[in-house]
C-alpha cells in the first residue's frame, strides 16, 4: 500500500504503525473499519506528530508524550462497585461504560433509554454507507494528528442514533474509566452520535480513572440534525495524558450546548471542532478548568460558521494555582456567505500563584461583512478589596480567599447540565483548592 509515507515517517510515527499492525492482526475487525483505520493511519503519517513550532500546539508540549512508548491497552477489569460510584443518580439506567477504551456491556445499563435510542458497535455500524462515509470524510479533513491516531487504532467504539422526534428524557451518561497499569498504555475510545431531526438528548461524558501511566486519546463525533437539541457535558478527571476531540456538525436550527470541566493532568487537552453548516444553528461552549501542582489543561477551539444566522458563544474560565498551566487557543472562522453571524468568546483566568501560567490566543477569521463577533479575555488575581471586605466581617484570610476562589468557579459549575454533574465537579474541582468546606 502506501510505502511512501512510511519512508518519510519518523520514529514516533513508526511506533504507531507498529501498534496499528498489532491491532489489525486481531481478526474481529470489519473490512470497513479496517479501511477507516488505514485511511486514518495515512493521515497520521501525513500530518506527523507536532514539533515545538506546530501552530496547533503552540502551548502544548507533546515531546514527552510522543517519546513515550505506549502499548495498546488490553481491556482490564473494573469492579462494579467502582463504576456504580461514578454513575450519576439520574443516569443509573441510562449509562454506557467504557473500560480502558472498550465498550463494556456488562457494566452498562440502557434500560431507561427507550426504543428511540439505537446503539450499535462501531465495527458493525461502519458497514453502513452513511456511517463509513461520515467517518471517512472526517479523516479526509482531519487536521489533528492525535485524532487521526485514534482513527488508526480504534478497534471498536459505539454508534448512537437518536431517532427522529425522540426526546430522551433521562440524561445519558458515558463513562470512560481506566484501570491501573504500571506500564504506559494507550486507550482510543470513540463514539459517534447521530441526533436525528427534532430529537433531544442530554449526555454527560466523564473520563475517570487515576492511572498515572495511561494515555486516553478519545474522539467524539456528533451530528446534530435539523432542529435537534443536544445538551452535552464532558468532565476530564483522569489519567496522566488525556486528549480528546469533540467534533460536531450542526444542521438547521439545531442547538448544541456544551459545558466542560477539566481537572487537569500531566497533560490534558481538548480539541473542539465545531461546524455550523446550516442557518439558525446555535452553539454554546462553557468550560472550566481548575489546576494546581503541575497540572495542565489546554483547549484548542475551532468554530466554523458556514451558514447565516448562526450563533456561537464561548465562555472559558481557568483557575490556575501552583505551577499549573492552562491555554485557550480559539479560532472562529466566519465563512463567505455566513451573514448575520453572531459570535462571542470570553476567557477569564484567575491566577493564584506566581509560578502558574495561562495563555490565550483568540483569533477571528471573517470572510463575511455583516457579522457581530467579539472576544475578550481577563487575567487576574483575587480582588484584594473583596478579600479585605470579607475579612472585616470576621472571615479569616484563608476563608475569604477560598470563598472568592470558589465563587469564580461556581458560576461555571452552575452551567453543568444537571445538579448531579454540578455536584461531581464541585467535589473534584473545589476540593483541590481546599475550597469545598
Amino acid at each position, binding site marked *: 500500500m502506501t510505502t511512501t509515507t512510511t519512508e518519510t515517517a519518523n520514529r514516533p510515527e513508526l511506533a504507531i504503525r507498529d501498534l496499528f499492525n498489532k491491532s489489525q492482526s486481531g481478526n474481529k475487525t470489519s473490512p470497513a473499519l479496517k479501511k477507516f483505520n488505514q485511511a486514518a493511519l495515512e493521515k497520521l503519517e501525513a500530518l506527523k506528530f507536532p514539533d515545538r513550532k506546530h501552530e496547533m500546539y503552540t502551548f502544548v508540549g507533546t515531546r514527552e508524550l510522543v517519546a513515550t512508548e505506549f502499548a495498546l491497552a488490553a481491556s482490564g477489569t473494573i469492579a462494579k462497585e467502582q463504576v456504580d460510584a461514578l454513575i450519576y443518580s439520574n443516569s443509573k439506567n441510562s449509562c454506557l461504560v467504557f473500560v480502558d477504551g472498550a465498550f463494556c456491556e456488562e457494566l452498562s445499563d440502557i434500560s431507561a433509554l427507550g426504543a428511540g435510542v439505537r446503539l450499535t458497535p462501531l465495527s458493525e455500524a461502519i458497514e453502513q454507507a452513511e456511517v463509513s462515509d461520515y467517518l471517512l470524510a472526517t479523516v479526509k479533513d482531519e487536521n489533528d494528528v492525535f485524532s487521526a491516531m485514534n482513527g488508526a487504532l480504534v478497534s471498536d467504539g459505539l454508534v448512537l442514533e437518536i431517532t427522529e422526534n425522540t426526546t430522551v428524557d433521562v440524561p445519558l451518561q458515558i463513562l470512560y474509566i481506566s484501570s491501573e497499569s504500571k506500564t504506559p498504555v494507550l486507550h482510543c475510545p470513540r463514539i459517534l452520535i447521530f441526533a436525528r431531526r427534532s430529537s433531544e438528548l442530554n449526555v454527560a461524558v466523564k473520563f475517570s480513572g487515576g492511572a498515572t501511566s495511561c494515555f486516553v486519546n478519545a474522539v467524539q463525533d456528533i451530528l446534530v440534525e435539523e432542529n435537534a437539541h443536544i445538551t452535552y457535558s464532558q468532565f476530564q478527571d483522569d489519567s496522566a495524558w488525556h486528549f480528546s476531540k469533540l467534533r460536531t456538525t450542526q444542521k438547521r436550527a439545531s442547538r448544541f450546548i456544551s459545558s466542560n470541566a477539566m481537572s487537569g493532568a500531566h497533560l490534558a487537552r481538548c480539541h473542539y471542532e465545531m461546524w455550523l453548516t446550516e442557518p439558525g444553528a446555535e452553539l454554546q461552549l462553557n468550560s472550566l478548568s481548575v489546576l494546581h501542582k503541575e497540572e495542565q489543561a489546554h483547549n484548542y477551539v475551532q468554530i466554523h460558521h458556514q451558514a447565516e444566522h448562526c450563533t456561537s458563544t464561548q465562555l472559558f474560565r481557568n483557575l490556575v494555582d501552583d505551577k499549573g498551566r492552562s491555554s485557550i487557543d480559539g479560532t472562529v472562522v466566519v465563512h463567505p456567505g455566513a451573514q448575520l453571524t453572531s459570535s462571542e468568546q470570553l476567557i477569564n483566568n484567575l491566577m493564584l500563584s506566581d509560578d502558574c501560567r495561562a495563555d490565550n490566543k483568540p483569533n477571528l477569521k471573517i470572510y463575511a461583512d455583516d457579522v457581530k463577533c467579539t472576544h475578550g479575555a481577563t487575567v487576574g488575581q483575587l*480582588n484584594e*478589596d*473583596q478579600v*479585605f*471586605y*470579607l*475579612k*472585616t*466581617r*470576621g*472571615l*479569616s*484570610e484563608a*476563608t*475569604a480567599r477560598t*470563598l*472568592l476562589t*470558589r*465563587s*469564580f468557579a*461556581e*458560576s461555571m459549575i452552575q452551567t453543568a447540565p444537571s445538579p448531579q454533574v454540578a455536584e461531581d465537579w464541585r467535589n473534584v474541582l473545589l476540593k483541590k483548592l481546599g475550597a469545598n468546606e
Partner: protein
Amino acid sequence: MLEIKDLHAGSEGNEILKGISLSVKKGEIHAIMGPNGSGKSTLAKVLSGHPAYKITSGEILFEGKDLQGVSAEDRALNGIFMGYQYPVEVPGVNNAEFLRMAYNARLVKQGKEELDPMDFDDLLQSKMDMLGMEVKYKERNLNDGFSGGEKKKNETLQMALLEPKLAILDETDSGLDIDALRVVADGVNKLYTKDKALILITHYQRLLDYIKPDYVHVLSKGCIIKSGEKGLALELEAQGYDWLTKV
C-alpha cells in the same frame, strides 16, 4: 472603649491623618463631620485594619489593647464593625450564605456552636423584617448590582447580625432616601445599647436628627479642628466648614 492617641497614618508615604486624638467610651455616640478628602474614611479604614494604611506614630487602643498588628478579621471578631462608604460588590457569593459565615465566625470565636442554616434563616429574617428588607436580599449575591441605597441597607443588616461593640458607620446615610434613612436609623438605634459605642461619619445633620450624637467632631486635613456637642452639627450645616478652617 476606644482610645486614639495622636494618630499619624497614611498610605505609601503620604500622611493623611496628622495627629488625631479621640476617646470613645461605652454608651457614647460620636459624629465625625468634615469636608471631602479630610480623612474621615481613612480613619475608619485604619481602625478596621486596612493593609494599605500604615500607622507612623501614635496608637489605637481598643478595650485597653493596642490594635497595632491585629488583623482585620481579629478586629472584626473582637467587636469592631465598619460600615463602608462604598460597600464592595462580591459576585458569585450568595448574600445569605455570606452572612451566615460571618455570623458563625463570630460564634466560633466566642466558643459557641455554629447556627445551622434553618435557625440562621429565622434570625436573618427577623433582622431583615426589622430593617424592612425584602427577601431578594437573601437570594442575591453580596452587593452585586445593588443600588447605592440597597448596599447601605445591606451594611446595616450586617451590623444588625454581628452586633458589634463598636460600629463605625462611614456615610451609611448617603444614598438613602428619607424613608430608608428612617428605617436604617431606627434599626441602628435599636442595636445601640449602653454597653456599645457608635462613630457616625456623615455630611448631613439629617441623620443626626434620628441618631442623637453625644459629641460632634470636625475633621479637616487630617486633624480634628473642633469638637463639641450636637449643636455643633447644626452650626456646621448652617454655615459650612469655612468659618472653622479659616481660623
